[in-house]
């Protein structure tokens, strides 16, 4: 049911774990099936310098988490914000239709983390 790419990211997820002193944190939950995801970013010169994730969920949730960190790393915030759930699914060579919602989780978490970073920045008046 899963593509080789999904299984590869599920088995060996990239950028997995907690980040110390992140610049932005995205924290999202999936109301439909109970999965949760946390995404941490470090930003330098408006670029995502480092990114990490923690996910409790199915293989698709873990694989999309891993893939989106891969896609976002090194991108400018403007570029990273444009990464959609479809982009993640395509990069994974497709997801079963019942699992498309898991990719929303990843895209939402990234958008959420960038927003969190920008809010903090504005507050600090930088």
């Amino acid at each position, binding site marked *: 049911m899963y593509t080789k790419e999904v*299984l590869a990211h*599920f*088995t060996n*997820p990239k950028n*997995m*774990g907690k980040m110390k002193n992140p610049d932005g944190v995205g*924290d999202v939950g999936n109301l*439909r*099936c*109970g*999965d*949760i*995801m*946390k995404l941490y970013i470090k930003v330098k010169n408006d670029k995502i310098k480092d990114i990490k994730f*923690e*996910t*409790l*969920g*199915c*293989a*698709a*949730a*873990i694989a999309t988490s891993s893939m989106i960190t891969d896609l976002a790393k090194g991108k400018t915030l403007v570029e990273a914000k444009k990464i959609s759930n479809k982009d993640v699914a395509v990069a994974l060579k497709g997801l079963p239709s*019942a699992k498309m*919602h898991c990719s929303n989780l990843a895209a939402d978490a990234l958008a959420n983390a960038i927003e969190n970073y920008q809010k903090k920045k504005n507050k600090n008046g930088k």
Partner: protein
Amino acid sequence: MTANSRIYLDHSATTPLDPKALRKMQPYFTEKFGNPASIHTYGQEALKAVDEAREAVAEFLDATNSEIFFTSGATEANNMVLRGTMEKRIEEGNHFITSKIEHPSILETARSLEKDGFMASYLPVDKEGRVSKESVQKAITKKTVLVSIMYANNEVGAIQPIKEIGKLIRKENKKRLKEGLPEIYFHVDAVQGINFLDCSVKRLRCHLLSLSGHKFYGPKGIGVLYKQEGVALKAQATGGHQERNVRAGTSNVPGIIGLAEALKIANKNREKSSAKVFELKKYLIQKIKDQIPNIKVNSPESDNKGLPNIANISFPGAEGESILLKLDFAGIAVSTGSACSSTSLEPSHVLLAQRLTFKEAHSSVRFSLGKHNTKKEINYLMKHLPKIIEDLRKMSPIK
């Protein structure tokens, strides 16, 4: 354990066909292919075999031949019971009672009957997944004509107090006869009980019972409906006169032969195989308790409350489908009640009925053992499982 050998711990989903049953079936695909409804020798040869199989099933259930009806499986038998009796007896009463933990072949049919205007009561269960006799009593109304409760649950293995409910309904029916109220039929979905439990319909005091071949080392696509003499039921599949007008359609002769043979074997080995799998189950649960912190056993652990072969266990902080896949990579087959693995994205209705939290249901794994499993296989499982749980918990944002 060699790297490419696989371990099957999902016997509640299905079991391998017993080789002896297969050998009995084989001639009925080829040289003895006749249709038992035919009058010629080919037909009569097949009919004789079907009659003998019917006799064996009747003997197993403590019933008579004319009370045994072959179906395409327990799903069909369950549909026949719910729809067939409710539709037939609509003038007498429109209410039936079942439980929240039934198999979808009961629950979905019940919901569909509700849409058609029938009234249903869904009984709750306790923390161990068991229905109480008292709740059955309380749910009975003047309009009740059917009670359908499973013998043992397929997800957690909780054994239901069928004999007590049977007694209660019999007593109730005696009263109702005097009061001019409709008789209540008692149906038991016995699918998960066949390998391990007493299935005498006389002792269970049931009017109807369903079973399915592939859960006791018989073939898939064949099942049985036991229907006590005189119980009224409207045929759902209409057509030819097969199965005495209760279930039309050419008989699945090889399936019937295989089912009867597997049933004989199951009956002969019942005590020995129950004791053996129960020892293994206890061993597995103890190992998990010893080696993995923060787990929850969702199956009754005593053998009079739970099937000897099912251990349903939650590993909060890890998700069930992920556990299942990682075990599968290691060559081990299990199943899960996680929302992520169901197409509806709802966690197991059984675990929720047992009032597990969402998080617990999300992390549940069902290990269902069979007669061929060994201690060595459990040891192999335990070489992988603790690490899998630890890794997934490490990945989770909530520790």
